[in-house]
């Protein structure tokens, strides 16, 4: 590479930097957008169910029934209201104001005494939201079992309380099962997808729209110089957003960071380059900022959101879709980030995923180089 070529690249990078500094939209996309999205994902999206509103219907007034009702009220999973008749809650359940009802029937004590604990209470859940209905069902059952064990203890029947095999679940990497720990690293992948594609999609399309690209390609500049000149500033900007995301996640949302910064930087770089290349490809083809932004969202954000395994488990997708996910760079990045944050540098996970990212990035770069030419037709 000769000095002329280096000078041209340096000139382009400097020009691009000056534009970034003066153009609030680049700053907005690079720093404000990730922060906003991270807050949305961190605070807004939660797969944990806390404070589910349920009604507890006490048809029995026995001390046991009262005690069970107290157990529900003490649970952090429920916001409980107590009534005497299920009709009190029926309307609210229909209106969606309550997610479920727990009925403690008049013959509660009798059934318990007969050892038919499994049929002692009735659970009615709002099936229009199956996820929540499941939570209601499981948590009621859990609370009820705990209460039964407690009761046996109090009654001095420890044989019920200590079964011969005790199962004590221990969850690795995320012992409290906080969904934000899983969601935040995943959402960083989504955020970087949006930012990476949008940054370059907009700026190159803008050059076409304003006619500056035409002036540029009529100079002695080469394709590689043009690409390097465009990618370098936005790579730096993108890594800046990455830093914002990581620091916010670790400090504000207490997500652990167990891997190394080096691994994070390396893998993020490969991913970011793939995304920047995708953005450039989009804008080179569309040559129009509005269309480029639309396409960037459709081919960048949507597949990343739906098919990366960030929210929706890939293993539970139908096989053809599972195969499709292999084409989505975010899929590999989500896995890498979750691993680096929660588990550490685990080569058996990181290496194959990074190689896949490298392959995708290479293909996209080659496509961009092929599509970018110094001609208008």
């Amino acid at each position, binding site marked *: 590479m000769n000095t002329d070529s280096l000078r041209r690249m340096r000139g382009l990078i400097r020009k691009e930097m000056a534009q970034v500094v003066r153009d609030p939209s680049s700053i907005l996309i690079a720093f404000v957008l990730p922060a906003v999205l991270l807050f949305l994902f961190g605070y807004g999206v939660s797969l944990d169910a806390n404070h589910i509103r349920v009604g507890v219907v006490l048809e029995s007034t026995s001390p046991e029934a009262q005690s069970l009702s107290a157990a529900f009220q003490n649970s952090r999973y429920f916001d409980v209201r107590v009534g005497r008749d299920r009709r009190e809650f029926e309307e609210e359940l229909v209106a969606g104001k309550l997610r479920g009802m727990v009925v403690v029937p008049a013959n509660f004590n009798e059934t318990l005494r007969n050892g038919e604990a499994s049929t002692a209470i009735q659970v009615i859940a709002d099936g229009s939201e199956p996820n929540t209905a499941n939570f209601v069902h499981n948590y009621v059952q859990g609370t009820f079992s705990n209460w039964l064990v407690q009761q046996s203890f109090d009654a001095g029947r420890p044989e019920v309380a200590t079964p011969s095999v005790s199962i004590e679940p221990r969850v690795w990497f995320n012992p409290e099962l906080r969904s934000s720990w899983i969601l935040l690293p995943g959402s960083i992948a989504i955020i970087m997808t949006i930012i990476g594609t949008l940054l370059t999609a907009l700026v190159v399309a803008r050059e076409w729209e304003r006619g500056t690209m*035409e002036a540029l390609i*009529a100079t002695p500049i080469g394709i590689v110089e043009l690409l390097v000149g465009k990618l370098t500033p936005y790579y730096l900007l993108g890594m800046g957003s990455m830093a914002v995301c990581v620091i916010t996640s670790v400090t504000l949302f207490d997500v652990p960071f167990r891997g190394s910064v080096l691994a994070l930087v390396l893998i993020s770089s490969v991913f970011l380059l793939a995304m920047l290349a995708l953005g450039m490809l989009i804008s080179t083809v569309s040559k129009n900022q509005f269309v480029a932004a639309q396409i960037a969202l459709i081919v960048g954000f949507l597949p990343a959101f739906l098919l990366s395994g960030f929210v929706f488990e890939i293993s539970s997708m139908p096989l053809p879709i599972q195969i499709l996910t292999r084409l989505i760079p975010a899929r590999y990045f989500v896995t890498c980030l979750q691993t680096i944050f929660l588990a550490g540098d685990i080569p058996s996970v990181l290496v194959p995923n990074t190689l896949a990212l490298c392959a995708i990035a290479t293909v996209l770069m080659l496509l961009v180089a092929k599509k970018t030419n110094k001609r208008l037709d």
Partner: protein
Amino acid sequence: MPFGRECRSPFTYPMPDLLASVESVTKRFPNIDSPALDKITAVIRSGEICGLVGADGAGKTTLLRLLAGLLEPSEGAITVTGLNSVKESDAIHERIGYMPQRFGLYEDLTVIENLRLYADLRGVVGDERSEAFERLLRFTDLARFTKRLAGALSGGMKQKLGLACALIRKPQLLLLDEPSVGVDPISRRELWTMVGDLVDDGIGVVWSTAYLDEAELCDTVLLLNEGQLLHDGKPSELTKQVKGRVFLVSGIEENQRRHVLAQTLRKKAVIDGVIQGKSLRLLVKKGETLPSLPGTAQSTTPRFEDAFIDRLGGGPGGDSALAAQMDPISGDKNVPVIEATTLTKKFGSFIASDNVSFEVRRGEVFGLLGPNGAGKSTAFKMMCGLLQPTSGQAKVTGLDLKTATSKARSKIGYMAQKFSLYGDLSVRQNLDFFAGIYGLTGGRKRSAIETMIETFSLQAYLKTSAAVLPLGFKQRLALSCAVMHEPAVLFLDEPTSGVDPLTRREFWTHINGLVEKGVTIMVTTHFMDEAEYCDRIALVFRGRVIATGSPDELKSESDAASLEDAFIGLIERETKEGTAA
């Protein structure tokens, strides 16, 4: 003026004579039937300004891009400085300067940053760079503005900066795509001086333009029309062909001249005629003599446009089918139909329109003339109720646009810049839509649409999308959409800029016909020729009306030969008074 003779051009050393040759080049674009350029053969020499002249869509930009090696010819070959434009385009890029439309500047970079970028790209470094910057900044008179963002420069300054960027390394060939669009007449004149200096140093310049008056300033002209090369040679060779056949007829009563023009154009001997101020400008067919007319005819110097029309076989007739089917609008001719009283519009601290006042009588053609950004569109938009004035009053047919907006608007027909049709809708759907928004329904709507289709021969295109219509039909459709509801007042925003002279004449034939029927017309234009069609014009500059009068009055007021000279004279007087005050 900073660009007098004493300002030497920035370069000096000799170069070869033949710079570029175009050999039977055809360029086709996918999905378009007719070629953008059809078997063009031409040469470009150093030390000359070669004018690439033609209307929008004639193929000017395509030819420039082919020369710059940015497009590949479908057939034929182009050689630039001895290099093949396809195989050796990289080497060509080293040797040419290219200024695309809208100057190719980064508006969010400062003047010096733009220069620095292009210096980096073209490998101008060290002492060579500082010399080049100094020379170009002096040449363009931009030294005071190096720290200003390019986007904050005026049209004229942008154009000079664009030129400076294209000249960073002395090119052998300089390609300029419509450099004079969006530039005020004074800056335009300065640019011609600057380019003249470059040419003196041996650089070859290709200057593309849709303004036919610029053709006469070029050393050679390539005249393009719908992809065909109509003329290749000196502009005088073309105008010579109509010598002695162009007449100026004066002394016709003012309210009669449109009528006389229409009648004259019916005669076989007269192949073209337009209104020029108080007079008629007529072109007589080869071998014929001027028929007898009211008023006195005088032979006049032919213009490039006269020759162009002659080359195309004459203009359209003078009868408007549109006006023929229209009922005359009755009413007193002396009552003002359009009234602007101290119209002022502020955008923040910027005064876009400053105390603008004028009156337009029934059946008058009134023009707002001024460079881009002078504020004529702002004044215009207030007159048709699209913009609320900050202060002052706008009235149409006696109705205040502020209080009786919709009632006033129903009297108005509006044709926006670039025709503003719905490109994705068919001709029929466009007609339907515009009839609907102007409040036509049922039988009235049907008959109005039928009349328009018949009058403008739109039958064959009814199912065609407006976007792909031939330019002439696009204009017809736009006009029919604006007049379908038979408005008493017609607003035309830059109606024929960039349009070929035949289409322009057809358009003005209809307008003249409508005026005969009593319709009042208000036009904005930056096109001096078009301003000659008006009865009266107001010159707008920096938001203010600096002079009002008939084209002839304005010319005699500033003792100028052309309207452009008059305009420049008036602006200079105005700025002088401004600095004195």
